[in-house]
């Protein structure tokens, strides 16, 4: 199973080729250029560097949300275009699960936090549980959008050490240290943000369970309505 993986849900643009247990290529940048300018040139460079025959790819994995609305759509449109052109399926990897999977085997619980502004985060809480194949990742709290204080409460509630990662860390680290009642850790640079290698590796596991999506049916999970929809619903409630 050979996977071409993409994650453009945050500030990082990252693409990877993962084949079964091998990471063939990963290209990740954290720079100010827009994903529209970076993602495809990166993919072309990866393709050329590893002499990739695109037709040998079995599926396109994409971080499916949450994240920046525009970033998610650039990733989704890219994945959909690639999948349509190659006649291959898409594997939707929830952004938070892709991030958490980087910490495979962690004894601490894993809590990705993505800054969603105004003290909100996109977050989830994951645990690596030993089984006959090594570890499997289980969600103690499925991905959601919530206030950072609620997120810290959830992290505290299992009375186990928690490893935080994501672009919410620099924003909320002090607050987390202040309110944590369990030991907390913060992932180092190479595990801090999104990684297409991790998305691809988790997609290999999803593929074993046939979690494929037709290219035309894929759309991001935003976790939030658009502002216009929210305002319209609030107005309707008041009326």
């Amino acid at each position: 199973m050979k996977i071409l993986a993409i994650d453009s849900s945050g500030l990082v643009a990252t693409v990877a080729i993962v084949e079964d247990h091998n990471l063939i290529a990963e290209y990740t940048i954290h720079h100010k250029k827009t994903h529209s300018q970076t993602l495809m040139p990166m993919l072309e460079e990866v393709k050329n560097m590893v002499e990739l025959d695109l037709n040998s790819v079995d599926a396109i994995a994409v971080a499916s949300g949450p994240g920046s609305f525009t970033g998610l759509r650039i990733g989704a449109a890219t994945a959909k275009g690639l999948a349509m052109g190659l006649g291959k399926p898409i594997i939707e990897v929830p952004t938070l699960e892709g991030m958490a999977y980087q910490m495979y085997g962690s004894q601490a619980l894993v809590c990705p936090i993505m800054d969603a502004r105004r003290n909100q985060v996109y977050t989830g809480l994951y645990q690596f549980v030993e089984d006959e194949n090594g570890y499997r990742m289980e969600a103690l709290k499925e991905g959601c959008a919530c206030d950072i204080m609620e997120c810290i409460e959830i992290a505290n509630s299992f009375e186990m050490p928690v490893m935080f990662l994501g672009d919410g860390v620099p924003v909320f680290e002090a607050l987390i240290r202040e309110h944590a009642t369990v030991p907390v850790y913060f992932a180092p640079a190479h595990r801090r943000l999104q990684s297409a290698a991790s998305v691809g590796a988790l997609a290999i596991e999803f593929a074993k369970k046939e979690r494929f999506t037709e290219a035309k049916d894929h759309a991001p999970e935003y976790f939030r309505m658009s502002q216009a929809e929210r305002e319209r619903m609030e107005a309707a409630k008041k009326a």
Partner: protein
Amino acid sequence: MTTNKDIYILAIESSCDETAAAVVKNGRTVLSNIISSQIDLHTLYGGVVPEIASRKHIEKINQVIEEAMKEAEVTMDDIDAIAVTYGPGLVGALLVGVSAAKALAFATGKPLVGVHHIEGHISANYIENLELEPPFMSLVVSGGHSHLVVVKDYGEYEIIGRTRDDAAGEAFDKVARAIGLGYPGGPKIDRVSKEGNPEAIKFPRAKVGENIYDFSFSGLKSAVLNYLNGAQMKGEEVNVPDVAASFQKAVTDVLVEHAIHGAKEYNFKKLAIAGGVASNSSLRAAMQAACDKAGIAFYHPSPIYCTDNAAMIGVAGYYEYIKGARHGWDLNAVPNLKLGER
């Protein structure tokens, strides 16, 4: 390169609230023209909501492309190049089409050609008028644009007049809202005006400073709003068809006068209109009459090619393609892309 091979362009357009794809043969024959309109959704909000438009584009983009290929009875093997609108427009909306087009071109090894949306609108005239070739004068009027353009050659343009404030279609939307007709304003005002007297109310025809070809519609819009306020203060009932017809006449008069003046001044015997407002029946009739009087051949696309569509992008893309225009994988959406720039 052989000269007798047919050229097939797959075109994608997502600059505003229509998700569209088309297949065009040799720049003039439309083999398919699929448009998924979101208008009902945006009507709830009284105008296009960019985030909602972008969300709909990503849901529909593959179906629309697949349908265009199926209806044209072609496969990717037949396609010579992929053309896509990369500006101007809503950035989030443009990005869906641009990203999908790039990935599809990359996956299939096809050349990528970015197209200017307005160049597409002008090129819509080539579809049904096989004899039409540059140079000619063109008036582009839509919800976002009001341009008087000299089409020097395929892909070569000079804008001689532009709006100083509101676009013509924008003025239609705003006035339609003010007189309670709702969104989208253009077709609604067009319909209601048929019942009204265009001479009933004398609204101003804006003159704009130094450039005689420039437009201004915000003064006219204010005049309509003032008229409505005045009537309300005096407790008079407003005759909506009369207001609509008189407003429409004021817009039409200015558009016709500038376009005809430009055509005469630049010595063109051909005038083509384009863009959503080019569907307006009053504008078409007035422009036809003025052209007949001036001995100018008048061209206009069918309504389906006036609205945002991908067939027009395929036509413009074809002429860019045969001139050798290609874009790289770093092609970005450019929301304020200028005509004639790349």
